[in-house]
C-alpha cells in the first residue's frame, strides 16, 4: 500500500463543492505534482490531509493508518510536514529557533526537566542546534541564523518555512506553492533542493503554478479542476491530455 492514500474525499463549503470524491495515491520516495487553476481546491486538499479541516466524507490513510479526523499535531507527529501558501514564519523567534521549533517532535523533556536544565536536555539542545544550522545551510540562510524571522525578506521567509518543515524530518512533505513569488534564480535553487530531498528518501507532494518547474521535477502529476482529478500520470501524459489543455488554455487568459 502506498504512503498516502485518499479515498473518495469530499468537502463542500456552503454551496461550493470544493472537493468531489477525490482519490489519490502517493508512492514512497516519489515527487507528486498537483496542478490546476486557482480555486480548484488544491489548498483545501492540503488542509484536509494535514488535519486543519475535516472532510465531509471519504477517508485518508497515511502509512497504512487512517488519519481522517486526527488533530493536526498528531498527524504531524506521524511524520507529515507541510508548508503554507501564505507563509507563516514564527516572527517572534530567530531563524534558528524557527528550525529548532520544527525539530520539536524529536526533542524530549517536559516542563520540569527543561526547567532544571538536566544534562540530557543540555546535550540534546546542543545537538539540535548543530543540526538546525545544517538545515539552515541547506536552505541557504546560515548567514542569517540569528536574525528575527520577522526581519527576513519574503524569499528568505519562504525558505525558512521550508526549512521548518524539513526539520520535522517527515516521511511525506506537502509543499503548497513553494515557488510562488520567487525570482527565477531562487526557483532553480529550490527545485534542486527538492530533488535533493527526494534523493534523501523523502516523499514530496507539491502544489505549484509554475508548469515548467513541476514538469521538470515531478515523477507523477495530477491535474485538478473544480475539485476533481481530470488527469493523472507522468508529466508527458498529463501535458498531452486534452482536458488539461483546454482547462489551461481557458486558464491562460487569467494568469500567465
Amino acid at each position, binding site marked *: 500500500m502506498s504512503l498516502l492514500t485518499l479515498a473518495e474525499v469530499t468537502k463542500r463549503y456552503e454551496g461550493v463543492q470544493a472537493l468531489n470524491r477525490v482519490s489519490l495515491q502517493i508512492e514512497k520516495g516519489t515527487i507528486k505534482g498537483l496542478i490546476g487553476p486557482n480555486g480548484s481546491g488544491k489548498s483545501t486538499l492540503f488542509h484536509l490531509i494535514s488535519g486543519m479541516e475535516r472532510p465531509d466524507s471519504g477517508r485518508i490513510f497515511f502509512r497504512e493508518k487512517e488519519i481522517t479526523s486526527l488533530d493536526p499535531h498528531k498527524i504531524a507527529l506521524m511524520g507529515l510536514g507541510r508548508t503554507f501558501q501564505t507563509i507563516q*514564519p514564527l516572527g517572534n523567534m530567530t531563524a534558528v529557533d524557527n528550525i*529548532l521549533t520544527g525539530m520539536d517532535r524529536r526533542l524530549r523533556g517536559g516542563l520540569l526537566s527543561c526547567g532544571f536544565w538536566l544534562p540530557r536536555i543540555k546535550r540534546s*539542545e546542543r545537538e539540535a542546534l548543530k543540526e538546525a544550522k545544517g538545515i539552515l545551510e541547506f536552505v541557504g540562510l546560515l548567514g542569517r541564523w540569528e536574525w528575527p524571522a520577522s526581519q527576513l525578506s519574503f524569499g528568505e521567509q519562504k525558505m525558512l518555512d521550508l526549512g521548518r518543515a524539513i526539520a520535522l524530518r517527515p516521511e511525506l512533505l506537502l509543499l503548497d506553492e513553494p515557488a510562488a513569488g520567487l525570482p527565477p534564480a531562487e526557483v532553480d535553487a529550490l527545485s534542486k533542493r527538492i530533488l535533493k530531498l527526494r534523493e534523501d528518501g523523502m516523499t514530496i507532494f507539491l502544489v505549484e503554478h509554475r508548469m515548467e518547474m513541476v514538469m521538470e521535477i515531478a515523477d507523477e502529476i495530477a491535474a485538478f479542476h473544480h475539485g476533481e482529478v481530470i488527469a493523472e500520470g507522468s508529466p508527458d501524459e498529463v501535458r498531452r491530455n486534452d482536458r488539461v489543455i483546454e482547462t489551461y488554455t481557458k486558464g491562460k487568459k487569467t494568469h500567465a
Partner: protein
Amino acid sequence: MGGGSITTVSKNEFRKRDLFYVVPMWLLSLVLPNPVPHRKREFQKRDLIYLAILVVLPLLWRDFHFHHLMVLAGMNAISALGLSLFLGYTGQISLGHAAFFGAGAYTTALLTTQQGFPSLLAFIISAAVSASFAYVIGKPILKLKGYFLALATLGFGEIFLVIVRETPGLTGGVVGISGIPWFTFAGIVFDTYLKQYYLIWGVLIGLLIFSKNIVRSRMGRAFLAVSASEDAASTVGIPVAQTKLKAFVMSAAFAGFGGSLFASVMATASPESFSLNLSILIVMMVILGGMGNLYGPIAGAIFLTWLTDVLAGFQEYSLPLYGMIFILLLIFFPEGIGTRLGFRIVYLISYWAKKRRREKGKIE
C-alpha cells in the same frame, strides 16, 4: 538590506534634544533590560552584574523602608514573572492571576496557623494548590481567545473572592486570617526586612533561572510558536491546547509561590488584597517590562511598586495620578519601556556612528 535602513534613518534630522534624552534613556535601559525580546535567550555577562547589584545593594543602602519596598516588589515580581510566561511568551491574556496569588496565600495561612506545617512545606504545597486550580480552570477556559479569555479569567477571579468571603469557617471570611508565623527555614527566622529581602529575591532568582531554562529549551519555543501562529505550531507537531495549559499551570504555580511569601511576610491574608486591581497591576508589570522577556516583569514590578510608594505623598491625588500615569505609560510604551528606549538608543548610537563615518569619508 542594512544599507536601505541606514539611508532611511539618515533622512531623519538629528536634533540637539536627543543629547538630553540619551542619558536618562541609557540609564533606564540598563534597569529595564533586553530591548529585543527575540534576542538569543542564553545567559549573558550582564546577568552577573544584576546579581551582584541585587546582593550588595541592600547592604550598602541600609534603609529598611527600601528593603520593605523591594520585598513587596519581589512578591509582585514573582507572579509577574509567572504571568509573563503565559502572557508574554504564550500570548494568552489572564486577568485572574490575583486568584492564584490569593490561593497560595490562603493555603500557606491555613497550613501554618491551623495545621502547624513548616513554612517550607506550606510554601511548596501552596504552589501545588494554585497549579491544580489553574489546571481545573484552564482545561475548559483555554479554548477561548482574546477578550473572551480575558473576561473568563476575570470572572474566575471574582468568583474566587466570593467563595473566600462566603466560607468564613475556612478562610475567616472578610476578616481574613492574621497572625501567620514568619517564614522559617533551617532555624533561620525571616523576621527583619533584610532577611525577607534575601529570602524573596533568592526565590525570585531561582524561579528566574528556572523560567530562563524553560524559555531557551523546546518548551519555550513551543510557547513562542503557539503565540506566533497556532496553525504553524500544530503542523510541526506541537499540541496547542496542551502547551497553553502547561504555560497557564506554570504561571499559576509562580503566583502561588508569590502568594505564599506574601502570607508569611505580611502575616495576614484578607480578601481585598487579592482583588481585580492586583491582577491588573501584575499584567501592567508584564506590559511595561516588555512582552516576551524575563527581566522586564521584574523591572516593571520594581518600577510600579516604587511609583505607588512615591505617589502616597500626594494624599487624595495619588490614585487619580496613578490612573493617569497608567494610561500614559500604555499610550507611550505599548510594547514596554525597555523596548522603546532600546530602539531609540540604538537608533541614536547608529546615527552618530554613521555621521562620524561620513565625516571621515569627507576628510580622506
